[in-house]
């Protein structure tokens, strides 16, 4: 598995061959608060870079989760739909949102590194 890359909309991506795993960052979960509902995409759905792919809701509000990378969904993580609170406990591990078969590795390469993302969060406090 490759190193994690990060988007400005607070998603992370890791790459295994041409299959990317996408989730939301710890920073995102801290901004959202208690997560109480998650909707993940079904396999076969095509998503565009920065297109809406999933939904996450906290006690406060509903937010869209975007795919930082374009491709075709191979799997949505049903476990987090059944237990939305698990996204708060392990957002960058077991509680990934979806996997997709990517078209263009260049999109992955253009995302931020961990250091760049941490700096981005510091400069753009919510």
């Amino acid at each position, binding site marked *: 598995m490759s190193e994690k890359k990060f988007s400005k909309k607070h998603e992370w991506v890791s790459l295994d061959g041409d299959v990317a795993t996408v989730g939301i960052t710890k920073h995102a979960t801290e901004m959202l608060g*208690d997560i109480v509902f998650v909707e993940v995409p079904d396999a076969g759905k095509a998503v565009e870079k920065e297109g809406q792919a999933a939904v996450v809701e906290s*006690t*406060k509000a509903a937010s869209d989760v975007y795919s930082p990378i374009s491709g075709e969904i191979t799997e949505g993580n049903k476990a987090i739909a059944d237990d*939305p609170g698990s996204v708060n406990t392990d957002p960058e591990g077991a509680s990934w949102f979806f996997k997709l078969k990517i078209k263009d590795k260049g999109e992955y390469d253009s995302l931020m590194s961990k250091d760049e993302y941490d700096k981005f969060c510091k400069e753009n406090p919510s």
Partner: protein
Amino acid sequence: MEVQKTALYNYHKNLGAKFVSFAGYEMPIQYKDGIVKEHISTRTHAGFFDVSHMGQFFLEGDETLIESLEKIIPADLKNLKINHSKYSFLLNNEGGIIDDLIITRTEKGFCIILNAACKENDIKQISQFLKEHHKHLLNNDLSLIALQGPKSVEILEKLIPGVANLKFMTGNNFEYEGENLYVTRSGYTGEDGFEISISNTKVEKLIDYLISNEVKPIGLGARDTLRLEAGLCLYGHDLNEKINPVEANLKWAIAKKRKEVGGFNGWEKIKNLLANGSEKIRVGIKPDGKVIARENTKIFSSDNNEIGFVTSGTFGPSVNAPVAMGYVKSEFSEVGTSIQLEVRGKKYGGKISELPFYKKSYVK
């Protein structure tokens, strides 16, 4: 208008509050624990809420004050005993709800607790009916602290002996730190608890005491999930000027005597609605799955006709499921009726539910 702050603003900041702009005030939406933990700790222990943004409106006058107020408030103020409180409303000419409120009889007149976003207009509306010799004051020198939860009585009784004797929806004057304060047994969470009216200069000391008794600070976020589980309305969402008390399923809050005799704003309209029912009515709603039906979610019948809309919806931490309330055509209001909720373009099943979602434990 400049953003307003309550006397406890810096105190909240030191407690790690996240703030949100609410009705012109910078108010804590949550603290470090987050909404779900704050909600649960209120239900299992006790929590305090700074609700000093709400208006504490005092009126003084003779018997004619009652006549004046009864023109806009459909409570039986004549027979309201000193230190007793009622939930009621200000009504417009069409019977629409200008604000919902708690009115308490005091020795010299009345105290009305008004919603922060409405208080300026409320006072204008009430003033239309007042006589020159009626005195009134929106007291901004007072803070208002709600202490809610099963441990509230034990904790407050230690500090202010006598509060344990108060029954639900009654109040009294007490002494604290050499000053008078007014405590009522009431609240907005479905729990036993108190609302404490205390001078801005003493409020920090009171909060110090509560925190030393493991009472958690609770923000507006958990205040909303608590009140919704308790089936209580939020003005500006579940109630507004175009909704009347019959539609709001709050006809119980119009005094029996006033229902018979009338004499308040919108009486003709309300009399008719009381006799014939309203076209739409406020109901509780439980989505079947985990989906949250938030405000403005459209409601459909099982055969796909649009029948209403959601006015409040969230996840209820104590119910451990999503909960909502809204308005549906009256023929669909029976508890158990199957409905559909349109969320993000997709229809999800749900049912009309009893209110409250969470059983109350008031001390009567």
